[in-house]
């Protein structure tokens, strides 16, 4: 479709104007513009309406936004009623957000970072990280392109296309390797970071891990890992400064 390449490029920056007001709505409108070009010449009034709709409130996982974008552009070109297109966008928000978060933020990213940590601890160098970044970005581009094309091909039937695609299966399966790789990486990374440290460092790290775990588990929502880390650091600095 005309403008598909430019839309794909713009989808890479879909969160560029992320706001509490419209979330990724402006990015959706920005990405839709090249695809709505034909409508501008054929039906200027309809184009203005479609453009306004494309930038309305929308939120989902950024890598999967192309599904909603492609589907709504196709619906606009087929003359589907505006209210139905708005309902389609609203219906896609939650599932595309949940699927994307599961597959990427809670799945692929932790898997790759855990594998990187484990590989480094086992003697791999910076080359591992170059390969991981290149591989991840290739996946990111391919997924974004697949999402846009699937949306454009499916129109208002995009929900059916998503449910019969690889996406729900991946979301269901990704947690197992995510857990396995995280479990593998944590002790390896800790041992690597503590290697060649004086006696007692491992014991101190173990005790810190135990207390921090209890604080994170039972300390309530405000007790984040970052705050616990800062608390421990302050205690150690004070102890070093004032201990007899």
């Amino acid at each position, binding site marked *: 479709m005309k403008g598909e390449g430019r839309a794909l490029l713009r989808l890479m920056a879909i969160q560029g104007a992320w706001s509490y007001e419209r979330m990724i709505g*402006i990015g959706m409108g920005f990405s839709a513009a090249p695809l709505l070009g034909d409508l501008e010449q054929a039906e200027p009034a309809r184009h203005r*309406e479609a*453009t306004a709709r494309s930038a309305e409130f929308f939120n989902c996982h950024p890598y999967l936004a192309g599904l909603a974008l492609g589907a709504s552009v196709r619906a606009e070109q087929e003359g589907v009623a505006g209210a139905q297109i708005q309902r389609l966008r609203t219906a896609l928000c939650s599932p595309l957000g949940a699927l994307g978060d599961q597959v990427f933020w809670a799945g692929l990213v932790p898997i790759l970072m855990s594998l990187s940590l484990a590989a480094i601890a086992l003697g791999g160098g910076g080359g591992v990280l170059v390969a991981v970044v290149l591989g991840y970005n290739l996946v990111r581009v391919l997924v974004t392109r697949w999402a846009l094309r699937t949306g454009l091909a499916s129109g208002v039937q995009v929900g059916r296309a998503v449910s019969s695609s690889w996406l729900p299966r991946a979301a269901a399966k990704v947690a197992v390797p995510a*857990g396995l790789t995280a479990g*593998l990486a944590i*002790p390896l990374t800790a041992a690597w970071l503590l290697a060649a440290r004086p006696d007692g460092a491992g014991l101190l790290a173990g005790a810190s891990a135990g207390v*921090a775990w209890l604080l994170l588990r039972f300390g309530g929502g405000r007790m984040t890992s970052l705050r616990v880390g800062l608390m421990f650091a302050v205690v150690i600095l004070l102890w070093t400064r004032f201990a007899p």
Partner: protein
Amino acid sequence: MITASVGILVVLLLWGTLVGIDLVSVPQGLLARPLIAATVAGWLLGDLHTGIRVGALLELFALDVLPVGASRYPEYGPASVGAVLLAVGLDRPGGIGAGVLLGLLLALLAGYTLEWLRHANARDVHRTEDELNAGSVAAIRRLQWAGITRDLVRSAGVTAGALLLATVGIARIGEAASLPAALTPALVGVGVAAALSGAVRNAGRGRRLLWLGIGLAAGLALVLGGVA
């Protein structure tokens, strides 16, 4: 004590800015992960080893964070760049712990600037409401570029602050003071708890939790077997 040249600081500023906009705006391609951001910073400073170690420790903390939607989360990217500068600059045992401590502090503060960015973008949208409702492509384009520019400026500011604090830290701590030896092991411990906490939350219950346990057992076996 090692001090970085102005040229290297400028390159670090550019890298930190790129890492900062990668988190949310563009391209979201893993550059903002502390392990990546810190390793590249270490390489730029001529000390890849320290960069990877600082990055690995901060990555354990970052594994506890799920950067979804409108939630508030720390920003580890530019913070990692400042952390590595401090660790490399101090160049002695305990430097990594000091760098990571600075990194944690900066990540917390940088998280607040993301909220400022979102509110600033929202105000911009408010002002352009009529044009948006009229279907103005120009207004959408203007808002999008303004958002990206704002994030660029924010990321550059956060990175500049991180580099400034690291430089001041190197000068203030100087050659004289010894660094607390307990800092790094304690932070490794908290990092382990953080990563485990994130992994347990992601795994949920049942079979998934079992696989996390299998991974942990395998990792521990490798450590105890002397492989790692």
